[in-house]
């Protein structure tokens, strides 16, 4: 009697809720999958890096070749991220604020690096700057080295991370509309002033979001950089390449010590991403290119 009356009182909403055991089953399955595929690898990196104690970890990080790889990775990101940020802002302004023929084609070209395999991204620079490449003879005549040295690594990284900032800024700029900029224009503001005082404050979190993602990829890129770097120890190895070399030499503490630094970077990236998402008040929809 009591149970039937409480059933009658139940709002239909309850009908769309799963029984407790069903929700527990789904949560368990989802977390189990995530644990096996994503969390265990993270744990493995740290357990291997610190497997022989903190001393071995510190010694592995302080090895000269590892230090050189950290420096090269930081240098590459320091060059690539600002370039792609300026490009992203310019491309977003152009593609959102103006109508012109060929806009869709330009947008596709900006997006193209997303859909190219990293190895192919490296390959195109070998075809341009290699000994038999388009600019090969010219570079050799002037004793310039692009491939197997820092410029090649920077170029390949720039290619791979090219769309990141543009892709994040574009939809936000689109959503913010033109009316404030047009108002500023009628009040006599110039182009730079409109951009710096009106537009940039509106889109700054979107820019930061793109910069965070761009930086993570720039520091972590493996395939493209591996093709153009030539793996010269202490000179052209970025951190991900250093991980590969040490791993292939069975120096697991060394490999996973460098890897743990990159995991740390990834975690910082995720935290930064979450903070920016919260600022923007939007749900996490970062993965959509």
């Amino acid at each position, binding site marked *: 009697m009591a149970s039937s009356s409480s059933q009658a009182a139940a709002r239909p909403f309850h009908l769309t809720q799963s029984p407790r055991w069903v929700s527990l089953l789904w949560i368990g399955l989802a977390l189990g999958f995530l644990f096996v595929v994503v969390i265990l690898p993270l744990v493995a990196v740290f357990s291997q890096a610190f497997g022989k104690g903190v001393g071995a970890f510190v010694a592995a990080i302080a090895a000269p070749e590892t230090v050189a790889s950290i420096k090269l990775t930081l240098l590459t990101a320091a060059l690539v991220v600002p370039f792609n940020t300026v490009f992203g802002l310019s491309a977003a302004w152009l593609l959102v604020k103006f109508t012109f023929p060929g806009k869709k084609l330009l947008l596709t070209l900006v997006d193209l690096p997303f859909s190219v395999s990293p190895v*192919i991204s490296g390959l195109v620079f070998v075809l341009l700057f290699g000994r038999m490449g388009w600019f090969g003879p010219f570079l050799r005549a002037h004793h310039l080295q692009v491939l197997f040295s820092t410029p090649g690594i920077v170029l390949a990284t720039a290619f791979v991370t090219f769309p990141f900032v543009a892709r994040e800024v574009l939809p936000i700029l689109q959503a913010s509309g033109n009316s404030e900029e047009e108002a500023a224009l009628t009040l006599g503001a110039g182009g730079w002033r409109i951009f710096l005082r009106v537009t940039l404050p509106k889109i700054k979190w979107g820019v930061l979001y793109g910069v965070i993602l761009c930086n993570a990829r720039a520091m972590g890129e493996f395939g493209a950089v591996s093709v153009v770097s030539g793996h010269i120890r202490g000179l052209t190895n970025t951190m991900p390449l250093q991980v590969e070399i040490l791993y292939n030499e069975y120096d697991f503490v060394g490999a996973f010590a460098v890897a743990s630094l990159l995991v740390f970077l990834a975690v910082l990236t995720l935290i930064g991403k979450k903070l920016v998402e919260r600022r923007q008040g939007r749900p996490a929809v970062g993965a959509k290119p």
Partner: protein
Amino acid sequence: MGEHTSKISEGRAGTPARAGFWPGPLPGFRLTLGFTIACVSLVVILPLSALAVKSAGLSFAEFWQVISSPRALASYKLSFGGALVAAFINAVAGVLLAWVLVRYRFPGRAIVDALIDLPLALPTAVAGVALTAIYAKNGIVGGFLEAHGISVAFTKVGVILAMVFVGLPFAVRTVQPVLMDLDGQVEEAAAVLGASRLTTFRKIILPVLLPPLAAGFALAFARAVGEYGSVVFISGNLPLETEIVPLLIVNKLEQFKYAHATSLAMVMLAGSFLTLLAVNFLQARKGRSHG
């Protein structure tokens, strides 16, 4: 530069040339157009055109011989077939994870939500060595599975596992927002009319999820096909067995067979291009169905 500008203005077929062309009231058109096109030309168009020209350097017979060798065919089968399996696993796991994250509240949900993006933030080489360390014979999970006769590392299963890892965020993040926007009233109505939970899911929820799921599937597939860093460590790289196309390209490059590498790259690009077309088509359909 002028050449590229003219190329782009011809880009949209059927657009009549307008006299007295006016892009809009705001300033900065010429500056951003010039800078953007200069960057796109240098960073994207120039390198990719090198690819097209280099592979055109081979005769068709040679080109065909390179791209249809048994080793190449085996690598396509693994890259495209493995990516297909991985994208399918991701689609199922994507719906499950998105469902759990949107519909249920449990401790640590925010952390789980953030962890979904880890494969995007984690350098692929790190993912590769970490997965290998766990799933190799002497690893935590690998040892257990090996005792039950299942080898993961250095087999096709390992390749697919790495592909699942890199594709996961795409599947979850395309389904999640759609699930969030789903109107609960329709489900309530179905329940009131006597539909079971399973029927409600099959007839009400799944049809709405299918377009984003298909897009997520395609994105995860595209990512997995081109993936290199996380796969090379766990695959063992045996020709004809566990060799993916990107690895075969690297292999040709190391032997300075640039034309061969380029031909294989063209096959991959064609595959990726077709996938991209499919994604755009599905997203256009999604946009229309939402009005």
